[in-house]
């Protein structure tokens, strides 16, 4: 009987590692960790062995070799004498460019379509439903190919802009006072040139920094003006009209600075095969951008619609009771609230769009996958290095986007106090 009253022995038994909940989770974690390390070691060991069998090594030295190929659309200077590393940078920037443009456009399209789907207009609501369903349920690759085909078939060839010497007319004409040409290869828009620019500072071109300084000065003066108007309003009760002064302050200074540096447009002109001068935006970029934003826009529209419908009808009615017009109800009352529901799924759509931009290969847009994971990989035969590097870069982009969007999400989130 005395046994019962004896305190339990405090000695540690091995079986406690499994049966005692205090230690069990530790045991499991140690076992899992060992298994994980063993698996990782196994993979690395296999890779080393395979590389040896193939007579290859693991080294990123190839990135500093001459690339030797050309890229149609580049954001930074690049020639075929540049290194593979620079080609990779070009690809990375191209990926970021199309992703950024796509995210913006998809959001705009999504909000418009999501709102219009709830419109009282029968035809428009049906059309928007049709758009959403058709784009959501067909593979993105198909949309890219179809839009690409439409662009190449419908737009005029650059040659159509050539003026026929006999008739003095061309088969196609440029838009906006002969400054913009839409062709089936690219959109040629005027470039900006300066005849006597200021020297650059800290890598910023002269016109850029001087214009920024001028703009900042204008903004500063404008804030002083506003403060003065407020003072007068407080003193006299009437606010002096300032809009014209604001307009001047916000536009004149930087325009004057640019004009002083000899601002002029570099209008593209047709020459033998193609337009010369100006900026050419390749159709590959436009098509990919359109396809990505139309496809993702359909998903965003659904998110927006769900977000709006999640806001209780009382909000609309209360806003209407306050005398707001339907457009203002949407923009001032419903959307700001819906935004909280919309943002989290929107983040994952942005991520999807960025990842889907890797389909650029279908239109020959040289993104990260096209340069590093495409031609570079092919010409150097360094698939292990190239693909791992590419995955790392995509991962970094994805984490970056979700990081930024999460910060924004936390900012607009309903603050519970």
């Amino acid at each position: 009987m005395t046994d019962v009253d004896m305190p339990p022995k405090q000695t540690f038994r091995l079986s406690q590692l499994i049966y005692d909940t205090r230690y069990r989770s530790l045991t499991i974690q140690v076992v899992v960790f060992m298994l994980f390390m063993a698996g990782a070691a196994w993979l690395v060991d296999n890779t080393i062995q395979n590389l040896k069998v193939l007579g290859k090594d693991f080294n990123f030295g190839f990135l500093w070799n001459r690339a030797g190929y050309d890229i149609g659309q580049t954001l930074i200077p690049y020639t075929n004498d540049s290194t593979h590393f620079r080609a990779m940078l070009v690809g990375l920037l191209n990926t970021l460019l199309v992703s950024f443009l796509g995210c913006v456009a998809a959001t705009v399209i999504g909000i418009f379509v999501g709102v219009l789907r709830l419109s009282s207009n029968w035809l428009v609501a049906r059309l928007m439903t049709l758009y959403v369903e058709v784009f959501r349920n067909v593979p993105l690759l198909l949309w890219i190919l179809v839009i690409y085909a439409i662009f190449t078939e419908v737009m005029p060839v650059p040659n159509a802009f050539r003026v026929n010497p006999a008739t003095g007319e061309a088969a196609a004409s440029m838009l906006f006072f002969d400054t913009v040409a839409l062709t089936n290869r690219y959109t040629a828009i005027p470039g900006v040139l300066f005849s006597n620019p200021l020297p650059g500072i800290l890598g910023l071109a002269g016109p850029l920094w001087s214009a920024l300084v001028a703009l900042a000065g204008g903004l500063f003066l404008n804030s002083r003006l506003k403060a003065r108007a407020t003072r007068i309003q407080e003193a006299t009760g009437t606010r002096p009209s300032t809009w014209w002064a604001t307009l001047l302050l916000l536009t004149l200074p930087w325009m004057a600075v640019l004009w002083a540096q000899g601002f002029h447009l570099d209008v593209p002109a047709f020459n033998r095969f193609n337009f010369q001068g100006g900026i050419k935006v390749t159709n590959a970029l436009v098509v990919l951008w359109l396809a990505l934003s139309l496809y993702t826009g359909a998903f965003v529209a659904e998110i927006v619609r769900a977000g709006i419908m999640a806001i209780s009808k009382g909000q609309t009615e209360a806003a209407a009771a306050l005398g707001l017009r339907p457009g203002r109800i949407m923009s001032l009352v419903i959307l700001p609230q819906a935004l909280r529901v919309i943002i989290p799924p929107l983040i994952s759509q942005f991520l999807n769009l960025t990842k889907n931009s890797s389909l650029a290969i279908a239109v020959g847009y040289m993104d990260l996958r096209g340069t590093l994971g495409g031609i570079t990989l092919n010409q150097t035969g360094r698939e292990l290095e190239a693909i791992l590097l590419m995955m790392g870069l995509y991962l970094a982009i994805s984490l970056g986007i979700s990081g930024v969007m999460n910060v924004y999400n936390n900012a607009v989130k309903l603050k519970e106090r």
Partner: protein
Amino acid sequence: MAEIAPFVRHEMLPAEPAPASEAGVLHWLRANLFSSPLNVVLTFAGVFIVYWLVSHSAPWLMHSVWAADSLGECRAIIAERWGPDATGACWAVIRDRWHQYLFGFYPWEHIWRPITVFALLFVAIAPVLFSSVPRKLLWFTLAYPLLALWLLWGGTIWPEVMIAAGFGIGALGFMLGARFGSLGAISLGTLAAALFWVVPAAPLEHALAAMLPIGLPEVSSDQFGGFLLAVTVGVGAIALSLPMGVLLALGRRSDMFLIRALCIGFIEFIRGVPLITLLFVASLLLNYFLPPGTNFDIILRVEILVTFFAAAYIAEVVRGALSALPRGQYEAADALGLDYWKAQRLIILPQALKISIPGIVSTFIGMFKDTTLVVFVGLFDPLKGISDFVRADFAWKGIYWEPYIFVGCIFFLFNFSMSRYAMYLEQKLKRDHR
């Protein structure tokens, strides 16, 4: 007292017709199309878009040719019937090659096999999708993957039997290990199954195959293509990724730091890279990661990576469902004294999985669309792979729109019906929970 005869009308008056402005076509038009200046503008814009689309595609669609042996013949027929400048659709290519768009190069005499597999797929998923179907069919659902494997690839039936036997032995081990608690049961079950597969399964299979060669003619993976490939990869990935996804979701919510970290790392890594890079891993890198000399065919390699991809997404869907469950459910399970695995198995997962079905269906739709990307590793997906080689035939060189429209329509039909189902389910589940 004078009797007051109350005036009560005995017959109803016929209803007055509504004012002309409040009824009929005119009213509908006004209410639905022209209720405000903005709506008028929108309506006209909509009408213009519809007109533009129809006017551009109608002549082409009207001039359809169904019977021809080549694109040249099609063009000749169109020119003959509708004038030399007419353009028209040449659907003859679909008529000529539809079987390749659907089945790839699957031998025609065995075509009943993929068709049977596809038909049985509906039987197998019916008990999961519709609650009115008898529960006993779930056993068929469990056996279905192996049956499909055997029917599609052929060969003797014994490898599939061995795999099934391994699961059986695993279940036996699980029951025997039940006395050591859930963890013991799971470890013992896994260990028993693994041991069976590693040691006696292969020789046993050879012996059985030698004794009783029951089987179908083999069809190798390179003969798969078109929608057969898309469905095989898509359905296979979702089916294989479900258990993995559930484990990852549980791991991500686990209290154990290391397990949570590993699961988060895996999920975020997979979700952070494009599928196309994973397919490149399948086609270019997997051979580096496996022991030298290991080699299995590209479809299986793609399937593995696509499964990882799907598992990460399913894990997020299941995680959402898990966190949507009321805390009371977890507390109730604890109060009953159930250990972790019992609580998950008996209380948490049945509810969580049920509400995650719409999400899983959406993931599947995404997956199914993404199977078109396998073209970039040299497989014949229905959209680009098959179309490209159809165009490599001299007869159909230069054909462009018709295959895309055909494939796009099939994708649309599949995915639209599935998304409608997911919506229906969502509505139903919503009601269940209120």
